[in-house]
């Protein structure tokens, strides 16, 4: 066991995979000499060679498209998109190509590709270095979408992603990169894709979240326990697609109250699917209306500190307050 932050857990796991299997390559902008803008691959170009740590041209569609070709010809590419906000030029290659290759070929071809990208806000990234992108991709049949909230899950899920025979979009929250630390086993282990995880047990209500927001929920739950003696169960979605509604519904049925919290713009966000499914499947078990908290429906966080803060926390402690309200309802 070692204590690490999330970005270090990602780095170490990826490093081990590169060392263990030369079908694995990393390609993206500035992954070479610069070691990536978050230093994930610092020193790897020397260690693994220029043909495995590939500085690409500034062209996201090309990065993903080339990686798809590699994946169809015996390699295990990890495509890095420098910021999630810049994945949109590659939307067509991801949605129309990577996600469709198995289906359209009736199972003849497969595309074992991992796309890693740092997402989310709260780091003064302004409109184009702060966005949440999971809702766009979780809707795509044929694509898996993973978003770990802890270093343990990050390393374990990344290994699973690399062993997955289908394309996986691996989302790393930038604020969690250094802000979130935790124990990580030294040996290799996997966290299966497609399973949610109860990160805190409780009986008063079920709070479903993921990514960095999960930690704000855990904090609020901790405060509620301390100050009000209320125990909130916090479920980490971990995998947006395929979505593990079994774990979520099981918790909701036990606590009889549900809230869903996410950083992304609220309307048509990923939390809508979770809330809708709870409503369809567990309405009779609910003691109160579902509460859904998402970001305001404005382009992701403006730059000026007061504006960015407004996006993350439109009213002081809004997650804590809504959690308390629901628990007491």
């Amino acid at each position, binding site marked *: 066991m070692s204590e690490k932050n999330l970005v270090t857990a990602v780095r170490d796991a990826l490093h081990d995979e590169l060392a263990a299997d030369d079908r694995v390559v990393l390609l993206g902008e500035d992954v070479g000499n610069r070691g990536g803008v978050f230093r994930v691959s610092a020193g790897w170009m020397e260690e693994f060679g220029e043909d495995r740590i590939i500085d690409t041209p500034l062209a996201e569609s*090309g990065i993903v*498209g080339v990686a798809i*070709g590699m994946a*169809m010809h015996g390699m295990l590419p990890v495509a890095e998109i420098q910021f999630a906000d810049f994945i949109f030029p590659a939307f067509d290659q991801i949605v*129309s*190509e990577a996600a469709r290759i198995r*289906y359209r*070929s009736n199972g003849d071809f497969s595309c074992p590709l991992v796309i890693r990208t740092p997402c989310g806000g709260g780091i003064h990234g302004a409109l184009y270095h702060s966005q949440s992108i999971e809702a766009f991709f979780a809707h795509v049949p044929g694509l898996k979408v993973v978003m770990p909230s802890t270093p343990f899950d990050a390393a374990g899920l990344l290994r699973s992603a690399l062993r997955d025979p289908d394309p996986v979009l691996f989302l790393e929250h930038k604020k969690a990169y250094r802000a979130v630390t935790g124990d990580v086993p030294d040996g290799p282990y996997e966290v299966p894709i497609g399973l949610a995880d109860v990160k805190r047990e409780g009986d008063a209500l079920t709070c479903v979240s993921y990514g960095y927001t999960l930690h704000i929920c855990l904090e609020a739950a901790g405060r509620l326990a301390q100050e009000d003696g209320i125990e909130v169960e916090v479920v980490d979605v971990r995998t947006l697609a395929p979505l593990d509604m079994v774990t979520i519904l099981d918790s909701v049925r036990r606590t009889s109250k549900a809230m869903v919290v996410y950083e992304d713009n609220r309307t048509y966000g990923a939390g809508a699917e979770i809330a809708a499914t709870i409503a369809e499947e567990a309405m009779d078990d609910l003691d109160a209306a579902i509460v859904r908290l998402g970001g305001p429906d404005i382009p992701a966080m403006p730059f000026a500190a007061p504006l960015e803060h407004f996006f993350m926390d439109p009213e002081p402690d809004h997650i804590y307050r809504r959690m308390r309200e629901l628990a007491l309802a």
Partner: protein
Amino acid sequence: MSTRVAQPLHETLGLTSDDLLAMYRIVLTARLLDEASLRQNRMGRAPFVVPAEGHEACQVGTAWAMRKGVDVWLPYYRDTAVVLTAGMTPYELFLGIFAKADDPSSGGRQMPSHWGCKRLGIITSSSPIATQLPHASGIAYAMKYRGEEAVVAAWFGDGATSEGDWHEALNFAGIHKLPVIFVCENNHYAISVPQAKQMAVQDVATRAEGYGFPGVVVDGNDVLACYAAMKTARERALAGEGPTLIECKTYRFLGHTSDDDDKTYRTRDEVAEARGHDPVEVFSTYLADHGVLDTHGADELRTQVKEEIDVAIATAWDAPDPTPESAMRHVFAEEPA
């Protein structure tokens, strides 16, 4: 090897009479297959077909230089004759046209002519134009990385050159000097959009220089010229010298697909003038001139191929449809049972 005077072109290129006959058989198969599939379309048995008529020579010429079982193919929807050269059979093509369960490309999931067949090295393809080009570069990268003695070829139309993916793919291939050949079948239209509204240049090949590799223009009605260009490009790729962009000037004789009415955007005179250089005729004339195939032999071949196609149609038509529930399969890998 020095070239003797009056040596026929095909011999210069290392092609035997048998090679020529095999090539011609494919050219003819493609042509007759087009006619047959359009008939099936009019009969209401094939909702959608894509004719290749006019493109046969440039398709077979370029495809013939590929090494089966080794090289990798990324054809586009018009490439009937490319996939025939790669090893698909008329029967397999009609399984696709009739959307049957055993269609090797997609089991009837995709429109006809959306080729793919792992066994033959034909990469699964989609409808969005030009998306296969970055894949071609990626596969070529993998070949180089793995030290394979092989090349990739990707075919596409003049319209495809306008997509961002086209640019990004050629740029990547040029930077890494990848063993990939880009073949443009320039028929001067993207559906109805004429070349002058697609690009401000006469030759797509002009663009290759900007990616640091050669671009060549060939007469797409001349099967041997296409073969020659491709052969050179393949040798270059294998020698580690990088990509080539080959532009075949060709013409589409029929509508864009069975859904198109080309009278809205082309004069009949223009089409007639293009038909004056029918690549099937050009090829058969060459064969006759060089004593490879006379009129009698040609007629016999035509009868044989027609028969093969008729049998293919009859057998494919009777093949089973996919079952409705099978629609749920292959979204992700299936757990081993």
